[in-house]
């Protein structure tokens, strides 16, 4: 945190060295985090990198005298929103890695060109503006940052604030409407379910997944005696997601190779013994 003298200065042109140090170190990390966000193949990794960047931003908020926002950033953004992201990622499939190969012709080049141009323009614009000195928040934060914000929010920005409330409610309702699925039939009672179970095809528990001991993963179907995989052995959710690993040919081939190798080794061993 900067020294009180600086905070109260009417106009200053430099921050403390500590803040500068902090900026350069954490800023670098933030940029790397941002880059990782867009370059990681897996959504989970992206989310984690983003969360890191956000925490760093929270630190920067604090450094800039926005104490309330800094805390909110951590609590609301990193704590709530990013977790929501992670939740959805889980729902969609954690392990699914995206292909980063571009499919739309010229998209990447255009994106690069626009991004580069945009960045250059922004930076040029900022550089062009004469922002040699700054006022600092000493006076504004004199009665405490939160109180200052509260005064503004509930006086000058009260309408915007109210409208944001309406927006939040609307979005909550909207999210419910979007994800809600209308039930078209009555929920089954436990009795009906058990009866169904008894009268259905599979009275015993469903077969477990996996073939042989080394392949007991949940996403690999178990093999029937004739060597074909059984869909029943895999969880419904995975089946719906299409995340079943096909073992029929691959696994069998592996198996064959394994047996062959072990035989060879055994044979060699026998030879050696001999």
């Amino acid at each position, binding site marked *: 945190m900067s020294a009180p003298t600086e905070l109260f200065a009417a106009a200053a042109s430099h921050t403390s060295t500590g803040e500068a140090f902090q900026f350069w170190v954490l800023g670098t990390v933030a940029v790397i985090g941002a880059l990782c966000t867009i370059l990681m193949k897996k959504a989970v990794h992206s989310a984690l990198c983003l969360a890191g960047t956000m925490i760093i931003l929270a630190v920067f908020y604090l450094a800039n005298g926005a104490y309330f926002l800094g805390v909110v950033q951590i609590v609301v953004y990193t704590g709530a929103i990013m977790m929501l992201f992670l939740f959805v990622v889980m729902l969609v499939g954690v392990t699914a890695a995206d292909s980063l190969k571009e499919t*739309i012709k010229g*998209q990447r080049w255009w*994106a690069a060109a*626009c*991004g580069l141009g*945009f960045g250059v323009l922004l930076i*040029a614009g900022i550089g*062009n503006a004469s922002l040699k000195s700054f006022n600092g928040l000493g006076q504004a934060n004199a009665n405490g940052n939160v109180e200052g914000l509260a005064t503004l929010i509930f006086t000058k920005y009260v309408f915007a604030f109210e409208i944001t409330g309406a927006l939040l409610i609307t979005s909550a309702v909207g999210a419910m409407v979007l994800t809600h699925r209308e039930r078209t039939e009555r929920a089954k009672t436990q009795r009906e379910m058990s009866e169904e179970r008894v009268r259905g095809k599979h009275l015993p528990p469903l077969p477990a997944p996996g073939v042989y001991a080394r392949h007991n993963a949940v996403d690999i179907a178990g093999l029937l005696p004739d060597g074909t995989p059984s869909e029943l052995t895999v969880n419904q959710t995975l089946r719906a997601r299409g995340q079943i690993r096909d073992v029929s040919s691959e696994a069998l081939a592996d198996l064959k190779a394994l047996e062959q190798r072990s035989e060879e080794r055994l044979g060699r061993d026998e030879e050696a013994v001999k």
Partner: protein
Amino acid sequence: MDNLIALLIAAPLLGAAVLLCGGRRLDGIGHWLGTLLAGASFVLGAVLFVDMLDRSAGHRTVTKHLFSWVPVEGFQADVGFQLDQLSMTFVLLITGVGTLIHIYSIGYMEHDENRRRFFGYLNLFLAAMLLLVLADNYLLLYVGWEGVGLASYLLIGFWQHKPSAATAAKKAFLVNRVGDMGLSIAIMVMFTTFGSFTFPAVLGGADGASSGRNTAIGLMLLLAACGKSAQVPLQSWLGDAMEGPTPVSALIHAATMVTAGVYLITRSGAVFNAVPDVQTVVVIVGGVTLLFGAIVGCAKDDIKKALAGSTMSQIGYMILATGLGPIGYAFAIMHLVTHGFFKAGLFLGAGSVMHGMNDEVDMRKYGGLRKYMPVTFVTFGLGYLAIIGFPGLSGFFSKDKIIEAAFAKGGTEGWILGAVTLLGAAITAYYMTRVMILTFFGEERWKHAKTPSPDQPSVEPAAETHGAHDEPHPHESPKSMTIPMIVLAFGSVFAGGIFGIGDRFVKWLEPITSFSHGDSPVGQWTVTAATIVCLLVGVGLAIAQYGRGPVPVVAPRGSLLTRAARRDLLQDDFNHVVLVRGGEHLTRSLVYLDHSLVDGVVNGTAASVGGLSGRLRKLQNGFARSYAVSMFGGAVVIIAATLLMRAV
């Protein structure tokens, strides 16, 4: 008194309005009403005439300003009338002959179910014609000018169910419109030259205007006169106009409307006097038409078309006379009046003959009718003698004067013109004698002709059929038809004498047209003698050709000239090939071009825009990320632009 002038026009106009809007309930009295109003107009004219005679020669002109018609900055058109000696002459001729023909039509159109409409049109014609001669400015004259054209159109096409009549009406109107174009251009030139188009402004200012402008005005007025008066090269409509009912031919296409061109040139005399070159053109047009009409008249077998040729030729005389300048105007008008009498009489006679002959118009199927139609024969005969210029009858006085004036032109021109007019007189005598012989003398060829000839398709109007078609029963016409004929015959006989003896007519008109005695290289009596000789030669030739032997019912092939003359000297063929055919090709190709080229260019633009948008559509590939790129790119461009603007 001058309020009567407006009333003069209002009477027939009222008749036209009542008769045309009145509907069927006026059918019973329509013809009486029409005739009454025409008569009223004549009475008013006569009252005005008497009033005019009371005043001295210099103060006879009466003007009446009615109301301001089109007042626009710098352009002042009024409805106003000018009644002077020239207009007076016309008023009396128009209303007089007009009333007679109204009476005649009562009988002639008796069986036509649309008689009321016919009288409405006749009244409309009278009103328009009176407006033409009474107007005190050219624009109002133009209204009358087109008004008579309309009336003529309606009356020629009165039997509209006959395609030939409808076509003839359209043709008449169109050819007239070409002339009207001339008149309207003339008025425009007048306006730009004099800033006005009233008679005083134009005629008084003509001396001060450049000869180029006077020439333009003169030539355009001549074009107008050619259209209305059926002069070469716009004469082709008059022959076809005979499709109309005969009273119409008598009134409009012989006595009054077709002479409007003569009126126009006489009225605009000051302009023509200022440019002798244009006068020469006028003379040439008159001379050519004179011979043209006469030759055509010789070859036609249709009695009305022969008379139409004659009309053309006689108007040629008048136009020629007007082209001679002040020396000729009075004689032109005098011939116009006498011609009005005898030609109307001749047409009415022809109508009477047709009335008695089941509407047969081919003279080759007449013959020997003098026994059956004595009144018609006598009146027609008097008209005949008048037109050929038989000494003592009206045609003699007027035509002889014109021939004299032609000689008086002087020099080579004078001799040529004199020769042409004399030749015309001879031919006139020839073809009129031919008409006379074929119709009233010789054997009764109609007794053999049971069916209408093939070249006259039998689409006779139902209303005009009197009895069975197979055998005509020539008979004299009813009183309502013969009385007008008799009156006109009186006119044909005596009018010339009344006008000509003592130069009464010339003096009467002198304040308007001025008059100059020319120096004729040949003596007055020599000319008269030469005229009579020519006349006798023409009559003799005709008698020699038609009077001695039987006349074939089917026309012989004839010489080349005869065949050409039958076809109006190929003028129609020329028109057909050049104007009609060419026009058809032009419009057809334009219709095609409009569709393919003009529309095509626009459609082509549309198609190329379509192609471009088709290509642009590929940008809309549906991938949200592509759209995001374009948005982002747009943002970049906007920021760049903003920064640039700042920098600048």
